């Protein structure tokens, strides 16, 4: 264990959920502040994580395990162990200074909190265009990074990797996240009501196709980030997915990778708005 001799705190607010992060290590604190610079907040934290640093270990390819341990949630992977109590909102993390471990812990915590609040993290790129948010989901290679790169200059990137979705007065809203993929660029810390979710496929031309509701739910559930083997929370997520599909248009977007795909997206939005 690396000894800590002072206390350093910051608040990282993603999706309107401020989480206090506490460490005794200046280098790690600097890493936190740099990595989440667009998401640092002066809000009073709803949740709190205290970090104990351990000596570096190789980056872990182990699967994450998230399970109940008494009143706590326990998150484990080769490079971190975290224990968090959902009643007090407080938790303790033992990890290396590896930023990927840090991202993973935050994603797991947000996924647990969102599951009980009617939201979810989705393996998807997202962006805002004409004041409305769009989600672009799909398997690796489906085109999340490509469609992010092709976005018009006036569009706002929320993320190219992990999208953040919460229920709102307009139905659902998408928030920016610092969790980046191939673009290696954090999203903007902003929010907009969701216009549509597109499941991406590359093809010879641009087209938007309907998806039957059950197929939309199946695809949505397959791409939601959720780690806990917990029947109650999975039941919440399935209820959320059904509600989402009833409120937000979910389509298959086949696209040829050039900028005209965004014309198709805008046309779809215009038709939906005026339908």
């Amino acid at each position: 264990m690396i000894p800590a001799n002072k206390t350093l705190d910051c608040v990282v607010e993603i999706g309107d959920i401020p989480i206090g992060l506490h460490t005794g290590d200046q280098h790690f604190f600097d890493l936190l502040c740099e990595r989440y610079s667009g998401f640092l907040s002066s809000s009073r934290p709803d949740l709190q994580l205290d970090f104990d640093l351990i000596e570096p270990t190789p980056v872990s390819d182990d699967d994450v395990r998230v399970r109940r341990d008494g009143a706590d949630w326990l998150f484990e992977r080769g490079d971190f162990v975290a224990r968090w109590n959902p009643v007090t909102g407080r938790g303790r993390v033992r990890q290396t200074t590896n930023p990927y471990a840090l991202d993973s812990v935050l994603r797991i915590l947000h996924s647990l909190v969102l599951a009980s609040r009617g939201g979810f993290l989705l393996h998807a790129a997202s962006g805002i265009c004409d004041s409305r948010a769009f989600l672009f989901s799909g398997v690796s290679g489906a085109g999340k990074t490509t469609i992010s790169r092709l976005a018009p200059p006036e569009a706002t990137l929320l993320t190219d990797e992990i999208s953040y979705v919460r229920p709102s007065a307009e139905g659902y809203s998408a928030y920016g996240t610092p969790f980046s993929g191939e673009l290696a660029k954090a999203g903007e810390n902003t929010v907009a009501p969701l216009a549509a979710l597109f499941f991406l496929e590359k093809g010879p031309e641009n087209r938007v196709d309907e998806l039957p509701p059950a197929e939309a739910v199946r695809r949505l559930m397959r791409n939601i980030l959720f780690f806990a083997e917990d029947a109650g929370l999975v039941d919440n997520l399935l209820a959320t997915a059904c509600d989402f599909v009833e409120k937000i248009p979910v389509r298959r977007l086949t696209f040829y990778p050039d900028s005209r795909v965004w014309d198709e997206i805008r046309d779809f939005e215009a038709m939906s708005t005026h339908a």
Partner: protein
Amino acid sequence: MPETYIARSSAIAARMLAGEMMVMNSMDSTFFTLNEVATAIWRAADGRTPLREIVHTQICEQFDIEPEQAERDAAEFVSELSQHGILLVSDQPLNSPEAAR
């Protein structure tokens, strides 16, 4: 011939959307969409009613299917869902959390 009893597992989530029943196992995330006949069997899986009775009183009558065909289809459906831990199967009546409601 022994009876077969079926009950819904407590480790699953299920929702009806647009007339289709979706069932998901929370342990391994397997996801099934059930057709009308499978949904009727699913709903009747209370752990107390023998599968043969479910097939004859609900499936054959509601869906106008021959008993032999309906029993074969039901056995196949039950086998598949039980392999994924979604249905519990026994030759004795089962205590199901759903059945207790």
